């Protein structure tokens, strides 16, 4: 990959090169005991809950828990909504990333900050904001309601919107970085061959940033799948139309803890799958 522009791979390439001229490796000194202790505590703190989840999983009942009433529905709804959120994020986010990476326009940094904000905003605040904007009396919602008779809150559409709101920034930021790192002369080459900008984008730019796009989409999807706060605030918790997996887990914890554990395990496995898919990017072989 010469132009994919994914930092991870580039580092990998560097590692392939002969290590001429590098300073000799320093002998690993003895680690300070205090550090080792605290680091071990950190690992334990992160790992024990997950181990607990796996150990407490009622394996024998798992098959029946996974098909218990409401569970397959929540699972299906979660997958559908999160994939729809990724699709919306890609459709709107890729052009946005392109503009941020390629066009110098006034207020670009402001736009970038605005786009990044949902990443740090408490999701429940995002949900409140969505409600105030798209609710029946909201800034935009009242007009949608009056003119188009469209009511967004507490619908599946609202679930997708809530998920896209919190997840899109991950895709935008990752794709923008990919576009910046890519060798733009490939686009020049395409233009000299007679390709109009759309053809160039479709046949050269997108394939060259495919690794970044894949990583961005995976991050976006993982975030959308786990979305809780904004969803419950803006879309509510209606089984079958807005109750996604995280909501179902939370609810099941009170009535049917075993089912909650089973559902959590499914989410853990999905998260691990994302991690494995992105391992090249985050853990370049060093």
């Amino acid at each position: 990959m010469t132009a994919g522009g994914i930092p991870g791979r580039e580092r990998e390439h560097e590692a392939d090169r002969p290590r001429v001229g590098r300073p000799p490796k320093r002998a690993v000194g003895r680690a300070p005991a205090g550090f080792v202790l605290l680091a071990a505590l950190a690992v334990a703190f992160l790992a024990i809950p997950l181990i607990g989840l796996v150990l407490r999983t009622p394996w024998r009942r798992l098959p029946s828990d996974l098909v218990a009433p409401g569970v397959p529905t929540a699972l299906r709804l979660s997958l559908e909504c999160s994939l729809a959120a990724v699709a919306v994020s890609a459709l709107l986010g890729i052009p946005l990333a392109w503009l941020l990476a390629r066009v110098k326009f006034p207020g670009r940094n402001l736009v970038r900050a605005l786009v990044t904000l949902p990443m740090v905003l408490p999701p429940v605040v995002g949900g409140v904001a969505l409600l105030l904007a798209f609710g029946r009396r909201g800034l935009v919602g009242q007009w949608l309601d009056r003119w188009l008779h469209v009511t967004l809150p507490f619908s599946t559409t609202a679930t997708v919107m809530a998920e896209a709101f919190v997840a899109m920034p991950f895709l935008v930021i990752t794709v923008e970085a990919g576009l910046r790192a890519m060798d733009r002369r490939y686009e020049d080459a395409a233009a000299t061959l007679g390709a109009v900008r759309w053809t160039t984008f479709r046949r050269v730019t997108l394939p060259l940033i495919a690794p970044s796009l894949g990583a961005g989409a995976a991050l976006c999807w993982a975030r959308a799948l786990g979305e809780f706060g904004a969803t419950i605030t803006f879309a509510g918790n209606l089984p079958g139309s807005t109750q996604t997996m995280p909501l179902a887990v939370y609810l099941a914890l009170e009535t049917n803890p075993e089912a909650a554990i089973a559902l959590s395990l499914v989410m853990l496995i999905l998260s691990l799958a994302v991690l494995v898919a992105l391992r090249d990017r985050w853990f370049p072989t060093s």
Partner: protein
Amino acid sequence: MSLEARVQLQKGTLALDAELAVSHGQVAVLLGPNATGKTTLLRALAGLVPLANGRVVLEDAVLEDTEASVRVPTEHRPVGVVFQDYLLFPHLTVLENVAFGLRARGMARGKARGCAAEWLARMGLSAQGGARPKALSGGQAQRVALARALATDPRLLLLDEPLAAMDAGARVELRRDLRRHLASYEGTCLMVTHDPIEALTLADQLIVLEDGRVTQSGAPAHVSAHPRSRYVAELVGLNLFQGRAEGGAIELPGGQHLVAADAGQFSGDVFAVVRPQAVALHRVRPEGSPRNVWRGSVENLDVAGERIRVQVAGAVRLIAEVTPAAVAELHLDDGGPIWASVKATEVTVYPT
């Protein structure tokens, strides 16, 4: 003229202000030191960099004219480009790379692939059609880049240092290959290089670009015999002088005089060249026929084949080429004063 261009633009610290004209079907080579705007000029002709001021006309079609606000975008110019590191699309196969331009111009997939396959066959690369560019050798990649650029049937072919990425051993053969392919191309060709051998062997017309300006242009033999800048003079290994011709002698900027047999035909500003082999060195001031004798000291000694190139510093700086025996006999490296002499008949004079 097939290509006529006047290109003015500013890029960083480089102020490009070049005018060039190339006849139909000719190979023009743009030669110049590094970072003098050669690549930028090429990119401007391809429409990848907008002109601040100027005009580009190709076969009577105006591609760009800042005064008339005409600017044909890159994708609509009948111009093919072979980029310096070829820029073959890494995600496409070799065949798809060559077919790219045809597809982009609306040819059906099957037809474009057939056409691309023909081009690969012509380049002797039929076996590589399904490979990724990464799997190609440098020479193969160059031919694919050439095939990709030529497949769209451009009227102007631009090549940016097409041989720079090659190792020296492969260059001779690749140069021969390239000349063959360029000869069978009927459009106009402009190639950038900083390698004088490439320039002299491939060019019908040589255009020298220095500091964003064309300093010299013409047939390679004429340019190399009549350098008009220190860069070209050094390239072809001649001593170049510039001064005013008056009464059979040339007055140099330092007040020295250069006597030339044919200086009488000129008056006013002239160039004069002297071959290094025609410069004689002496330990004592020579008596006799040489009309030009200057005192100086040896600044540097270089081996050049079986001869030694001697850089002489003094009121007049010049390079002499002498035999190793002469270096030893005259003890040229002892730092003492020497005398350089040039016969008036060895000085070639031409107007600026």
